[in-house]
């Protein structure tokens, strides 16, 4: 069967099918993108909680989160600060934990 040798009424249905197919692809694409951006957000939140716990400065983490999906800039990495005193306790807790 070829597009050129089908009846006009069938051709009309075929064209509608083609449009529907495109819309379906679009919906699938959107769902995928939405889920990926959701995962980024989830990861950022989880990291923020963890970072606060172990005392990595929150502003540095927020900066990092902004760069997710792009390359991490060296300049920003240098600017990271860790308040060690605050973090030591939590690190100890993590260290003693077994997975």
């Amino acid at each position, binding site marked *: *069967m*070829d*597009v050129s040798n*089908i009846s006009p009424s*069938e051709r009309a*249905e*075929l*064209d*509608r*099918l*083609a449009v*529907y*197919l*495109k*819309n*379906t692809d679009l*919906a*699938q694409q*959107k*769902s*995928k993108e*939405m*889920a*990926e951006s*959701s*995962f*980024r*957000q*989830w*990861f950022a*939140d*989880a*990291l923020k909680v*963890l970072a606060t716990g*172990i005392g*990595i400065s929150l502003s*540095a983490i927020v900066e*990092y989160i902004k*760069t*997710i999906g792009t*390359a*991490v800039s060296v300049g920003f*990495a*240098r600017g*990271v*600060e*860790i308040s*060690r005193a605050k973090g030591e306790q939590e*690190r100890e807790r*993590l*260290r003693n*934990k077994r*997975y």
Partner: protein
Amino acid sequence: MLLYLLNKFIKIFKKEVTTMSIYKSKMQEYLSQLREILFANGVSKDEARLIENELFKKMNDEAPPRIAVIGETGVGKSSTINALFNTNLPVHDFAACTQKVEKINATTANGDSITIIDFPGLGEGIMADERHWELYKKELPSVDVALWVLSAGDRAFGNMITALRKISDICSDKELSRLVFGINKAEHMSPEKWNIRTNMPEENHLNNLIGFQNTVLSAIREIIPEWNGKIETYSAHKRYNLDALLLAVLQTVPETRRWKVKQTSDVASWEELVDPEFLRLAKQINEEGERNC
């Protein structure tokens, strides 16, 4: 039996290398970036590994989707969940008329968990029962999404109006924003011109579906004027518009929970029910269209 198990295994395996690994590999990508920062700040390798493990654990521990389904008995609530998530909820051909909220912990064919909160039909007896509304009040705040299923062409949605009015009285705006409306059984709309080759409604059929959806929307807006949630028309049996329905569901789920719902979904293939020759030609038309752009 062996074939069944084999198929199941292949499915799980395929999912593992497709959807599952999307998030796993994303996670790995983020973590390798993070590692640089941690090392630059005197965090040891072991410590960094602990942080990574903690994040992985959090990902694996993320609670399964919690989905409420609301609607009269027989509209296809269970069929809809089965079509979107590949679960195996029992489907009733005759009105079962369950009278209580059922919380079902289901497992998808891929082995993922999902919690379904099935609200019983909105018959008059039930609606007069205050305990029924207590359950909505109790359960709705904690769901990812509440899918309200109607049946296409069923103009007697007086029960829905009464129920929605009551729900809008007892629920906060935030809880109401978790609602998605789905109009199922698209093929049952008059004039029932379902094209079996394209597995789609023909034009006059589609126009009636659009008309019906608009009628439902106006009815919702009469009760909740500022309503701007999602509404989709689909068919669980024909698998028509299920991708659009899933998108509507995802748009309604809280942002940080969308990936989990998407990961659990496994939408029944609409294409499988299209005449293969027609499908091939339609794809050809689209490809040619793209080339001409």
